[in-house]
């Protein structure tokens, strides 16, 4: 299986990963091995076979349209990296960059 460096660079951009040259080399090779192996499924006859679309057999799992507020809203914000030591309005927003 041939996978090009450029393809790995393209894929890493899609995945928002910033790879070093070394990583690109390594992952290109790894992916060639793994995809080469994954190609074994191409030999399986799947004509007239439906895909398994969902993991569960259950359908129509619905929720009622009733408001339930989450009880600890402070905790939802407390892990935000940008809020440490910064106090610029609006303070309850996640802050990105400068």
């Amino acid at each position, binding site marked *: 299986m041939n996978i090009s460096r450029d393809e790995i660079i393209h894929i890493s951009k899609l995945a928002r*990963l910033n790879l070093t040259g070394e990583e690109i080399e390594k992952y290109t090779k790894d992916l060639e091995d793994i995809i080469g192996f994954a190609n074994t499924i191409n030999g399986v006859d799947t004509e007239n076979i439906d895909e398994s679309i969902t993991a569960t057999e259950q359908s129509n799992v619905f929720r009622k349209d009733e408001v339930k507020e989450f009880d600890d809203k402070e905790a939802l914000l407390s892990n935000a990296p940008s809020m440490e030591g910064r106090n610029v309005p609006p303070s309850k927003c*996640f802050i990105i960059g400068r």
Partner: protein
Amino acid sequence: MELYELTVHELQEKLDKKEINSQDIVKSYINRIDEKELEINAFITTRKEAALNETMQKENAIPIGIKDNICTKGIKTTCASKMLENFVSPYDATVMENLNNDSIILGKLNMDEFAMGAATEYSAFKKTRNPWNLNKVPGGSSGGSAAAVAANMVPWALGSDTGGSIRQPASFCGVVGLKPTYGLVSRYGLVAFASSLDQIGPITKDVTDCAILLNKIAGTDEKDSTSSNIEKRDYTKAIGKSIKDLKIGLPKEYFGEGINEEVKKAILDVAKKYEQMGAIVEECSLETTDYALATYYIIACAEASSNLGRFDGIRYGYRSSNFNNLKEIYSKSRSEGFGPEVKRRIILGTYVLSSGYYDAYYKKAQKVRTLVKQDFKRLFEKYDVLLTPTSPTVAFDIGTKSNNPLEMYLADICTVSVNIAGVPAISLPATINSEGMPIGFQLIGNHFAEETLFSAAYAFEQENKFREKYKPEFKK
């Protein structure tokens, strides 16, 4: 005998008779942690003081260890990743809510980063060692959970299993581990690796404890759309049931090339023992086994690539300190926050979903998945359980395998089909090999046939008496 050596059902008896209280148990375990943790490295977070404090309110509670990818409100949940090194979940996973009243969390346990790995060597923080031999891996990804139970540092633990991550470390560490039927245990609060494959399950000292812990965590959850609505059962009732005329299939694909000879022999001995106990054992064939691994890695990585998109450095988690624009917040935070195996799987998963490859890989794999399900269905029309090795080998030396990812992936051959089909499977120790390392075997059941697994596993456990014969030696 120390309290930490007892199983939970033995502790429970003493609690019921008021011979001891939770404080005695927690103290005993804290002493044991102090004694062994430096060697084993099973914990990412310990909460000795907090656990002791909780004994005041919860006099009859049993301590527990939790794999660090299960959200615990107010306690760090790191997924063994730099990405979540300081993350404190704002909510409790549903399993934690189920456990809260009669459990005390002793700590959060080490694992492969985001549950991706089979040796706990991909933890961003530490390598956990196998209590039977400190130079060996405990397996993974729930290596911390299995090692902590084997080393008596927790009486029992929760792990998660996406392709064998409960069963394989249980097998490597000589303990019992169950991957429940998909949907039996809520996934709400389990940090997702592969949503259609992940299940939380117990890792315990024996089969009875396994049934007790499953009783506590199983059940419908309105917060998890994939949780099943089957009625609640008491799994301990399956303990001690006769296995006479139980039909056991031995899928020949699990005894071929690549399976270590000692392992193979041990499992065939287990089969013989079952026959002696009155079960009917027959060779059978699970033809899709050869394709299961490729199918598994395609589906698991595809889902993972999407599930791990939320780690972007904005609302929580690691954020790179040197970025010039929005795109760099993402790419730098993610590149610096994720370890090499996680990145590898994200790349693989992104690749198989990307334009031009979707049909050939992801869609094809979902079709093969249907075939795997059909294959199991066909066998369960004939057999009650299937008997296989849990892993092709026993625990290997630390640092010997992780450089070759494909070779690492191939070692999951015995466990992944179960997740693809969504059926339950239990791993329990059979014996030890010539080096003194445990060999585990796996019993696979039909959907929601956990009771059959417990009956079969318990019967063997009583006959085999592994825990009485062998103990981890902390060999250096």
